[in-house]
């Protein structure tokens, strides 16, 4: 054990030895290691195809809507609930967009906005029953799932509607322009990647110095350096790869912004803290003056908006709205959140964890498809990975 910190005021926390630290934080690092291991495995198994620029870009486009919804689902699950309706809501909003834009000729920008509002209303309608009437969320959203599946069919009259105008498609298939005019490489994209990576590094260092001031550092320096070094290199390398193809996709920017904003909201704001508190112990939170009903309601409203956004991205990507869109997606989203370390009983989980969970699912889908593994075995393997991840979590918690 080593002693740290120079500040004398608060009782300093002894920085743990790297091994002891790793043992007590296995849950957080476990999934990151798992993602790296899975990526390494498929990179080798596919003969280097996995990290080819074009495939990496594809990987992100394919999983963007899952990741967007996983962020919202993380909040719902942390608050101690579940939302089974997101797949249907996503399909419904896609259909709504198609009907408005293609059939009625509503300008795509206004239609998009109206779709997000519709998502919010759907989320509120479900959250209302969960929050204020204490109807179990499983039931309310199971009902929602059936209702919106039905409404999608009705709205599209059982047909596919499309195609969308060019500009609308750009949401999902566009790339940010290269303002720097690079020839083979999208320099602007690379620059953004490097800037973001640097920003994350600077923030991490600032957090650590802040924590040092209050004497609450637990993470050994070697870990801190290794983790953040790795993240920096990974981000720069990824943006280099994407810059080598067509640059950063528009969706990627949207996603990155959402991850950043929601990470901040969950970890640093009073509202985030309170959501964790109601998920951890609702009665104690209520007796501490926290309005759990309002927060639960807002959490579902937020989920509705993000499901609507995912619906728009998905419709734009397929360039058509089909009655089957979104079917079963709720399961992928929920799986991602649980693989990412959230707890079924609420109060535990992180946005970054959920995103990593979504990437684990995404890389496995993608890698197994490249390897030519059939959809049958893909499903089996994904199921077992979900089970393994949660067993790992539970065992770890028992040990600690």
């Amino acid at each position, binding site marked *: 054990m080593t002693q740290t910190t120079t500040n004398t*005021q*608060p*009782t300093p*926390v*002894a920085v743990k030895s790297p091994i002891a630290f790793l043992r007590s934080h296995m849950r957080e690092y476990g999934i990151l290691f798992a993602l790296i291991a899975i990526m390494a495995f498929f990179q080798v198994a596919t003969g280097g195809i996995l990290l080819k620029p074009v495939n990496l870009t594809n990987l992100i486009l394919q999983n963007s809507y899952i990741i967007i919804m996983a962020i919202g689902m993380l909040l719902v699950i942390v608050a101690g609930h579940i939302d089974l309706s997101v797949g249907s809501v996503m399909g419904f909003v896609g259909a709504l967009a198609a009907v408005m834009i293609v059939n009625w000729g509503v300008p795509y920008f206004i239609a998009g906005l109206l779709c997000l509002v519709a998502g919010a209303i759907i989320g509120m309608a479900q959250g209302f029953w969960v929050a204020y009437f204490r109807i179990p969320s499983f039931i309310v959203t199971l009902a929602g799932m059936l209702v919106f599946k039905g409404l999608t069919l009705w709205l599209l009259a059982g047909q596919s509607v499309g195609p969308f105008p060019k500009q609308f498609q750009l949401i999902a298939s566009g790339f940010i322009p290269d303002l720097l005019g690079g020839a083979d490489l999208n320099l602007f994209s690379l620059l953004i990647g490097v800037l973001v990576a640097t920003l994350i590094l600077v923030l991490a260092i600032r*957090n650590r110095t*802040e*924590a040092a*001031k*209050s*004497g*609450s550092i*637990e993470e050994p320096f070697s870990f801190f350096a290794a983790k953040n070094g790795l993240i920096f290199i990974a981000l720069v390398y990824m943006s280099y790869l994407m810059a080598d193809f067509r640059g950063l996709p528009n969706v990627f920017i949207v996603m990155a912004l959402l991850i950043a904003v929601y990470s901040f909201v969950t970890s*640093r*704001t*009073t*509202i985030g*803290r*309170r959501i*964790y*508190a109601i998920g*951890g*112990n609702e*009665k*104690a*939170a*209520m*007796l*501490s*003056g*926290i*309005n759990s009903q309002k927060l639960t309601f807002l959490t579902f409203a937020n989920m509705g908006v993000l499901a609507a956004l995912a619906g728009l991205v998905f419709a734009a990507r397929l360039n058509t709205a089909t009655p089957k869109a979104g079917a079963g997606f709720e399961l992928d989203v929920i799986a991602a959140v649980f693989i990412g370390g959230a*707890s079924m009983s609420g*109060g*535990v989980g992180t946005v970054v964890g959920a995103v990593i969970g979504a990437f684990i699912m995404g890389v496995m889908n993608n890698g197994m498809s490249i390897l030519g593994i059939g959809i049958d075995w893909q499903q089996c393997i994904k199921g077992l990975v979900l089970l393994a991840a949660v067993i790992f979590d539970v065992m770890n918690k028992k*040990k600690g």
Partner: protein
Amino acid sequence: MSVILEMRAITKEFPGVKALDQVSLSVEEGEIHALVGENGAGKSTLMKVLSGVYPHGSYTGDIVYDGQIKAFRGISDSEADGIIIIHQELALVPLLSVAENIFLGNERASKGIIDWRETNRRAAELLARVGLKEHPETLVDTLGLGKQQLIEIAKALSKNVRLLILDEPTSSLNETDSQKLLDLLLEFKARGITSILISHKLNEISRVADTITVIRDGSAVSRLDCREGISEDRIIRDMVGRSLDDRYPARDPKIQAETAMEVRNWCVTHPLHNDRQVVKNVSFHVKKGEVLGIAGLMGAGRTELAMSLFGRSYGQNISGTALINGEEVNLSTVRRAINAGLAYATEDRKTYGLVLDETIRRNVPLADLEGVANGVIVDRTKEADVANLYRKRLNIKSSSIEQETVNLSGGNQQKVVLSKWLFADPDVLILDEPTRGIDVGAKFEIYTVIRDLAASGKAIIVISSELPELLGITDRLYVMNEGRFVGEMPTAEASQEKIMATIIRSGDRT
């Protein structure tokens, strides 16, 4: 008498902690053996070793039961030998009947088909043995805690118990039910059943126990024979390793003339039964700098009164007025109550007080997150400073503020709950059973905090079922019975007898 159980040099280690270090325990057949020690001393761990919760091989040392070395691999092994443990948290299924609970896992059945006649008949017999007149088909959740405890004992009897282990059986029982339970133990003793009693209540122990083993920091420090007459002070000295001259901090009341809070004609109806009034026309006041006690039996309506005041967290059809610092206040939500200067630390800290999976740092500011935030953004430095401050001030024993509260001992959890409310800085603080299930050392620390707070001009209301505690720390007392305030007295003039008499007399009147 012969020795029924001998535990020899038991050592049990958890990663990084030696929970038991060469503990020896010897229990004679047919005696009541008390196991005492502060929370975290290792009493429950020792009993878990004995009952096979920690299986053979996970500890070192020998368990000799009935002259044989035993290697229990699980509870079913120890139960087969007649060793039955009743845990502090009752393990009854609330929506099953009394009879079903008694024979749970041990059903009266042949070939998997339950014989209900036999089940109910046997259950009725067992209930009679523990002095209950309930019908065997009554659902458990309609019964009070005292009766539920007795049902646990009936369940133990159904398994042909020879050695009964009770972990803090009276911690949530009122005086009458506790007496009943202790009488039952004495009756069992007369029939040759051996008991091991874990308890914090020294008066109970000196009443029923034959021998006492004191455990401190994972070692057995002394074995006392009660038949020779042991003073409570001697037990306490062995428990804490030092002599507590006084179990309560010195009192130096600085009661101010101004009234901090006044409540007039407060009425509350049961949340489910419209016709049952739980709090009936209660009026009271508390002055700044005063520690006010509310005495009463379990079920008198004290917690209901406190929770209904605190943001209407209990009951319906609440009426009456409340004034804080002379102004009428709106206490209709918890947030409003907190803003009005009221705080309520609950009797059940695990269910209502703490977010157990979160750290000390995150629990302390929970009632006033704005206090550590700039706008909506939490200032983590400030948050850590606040947590560190209270950790130091209340002497919360923990590795750091990053420790999850689930891993703290009861006394330290209670200190975290107190920290939370101290940080919210209320004018009036209601403490409901502030020392329930807490060891002697931590109790003294909490009493000191209460006195300090009063000295700083806060008004404190203490609800407690332990009369000595109320007599030890309060300045003035109200006595509550069946939803009414039936008496008021300065603590200096109060005694346990006087309070009980007030309760009993008020019961006669109705």
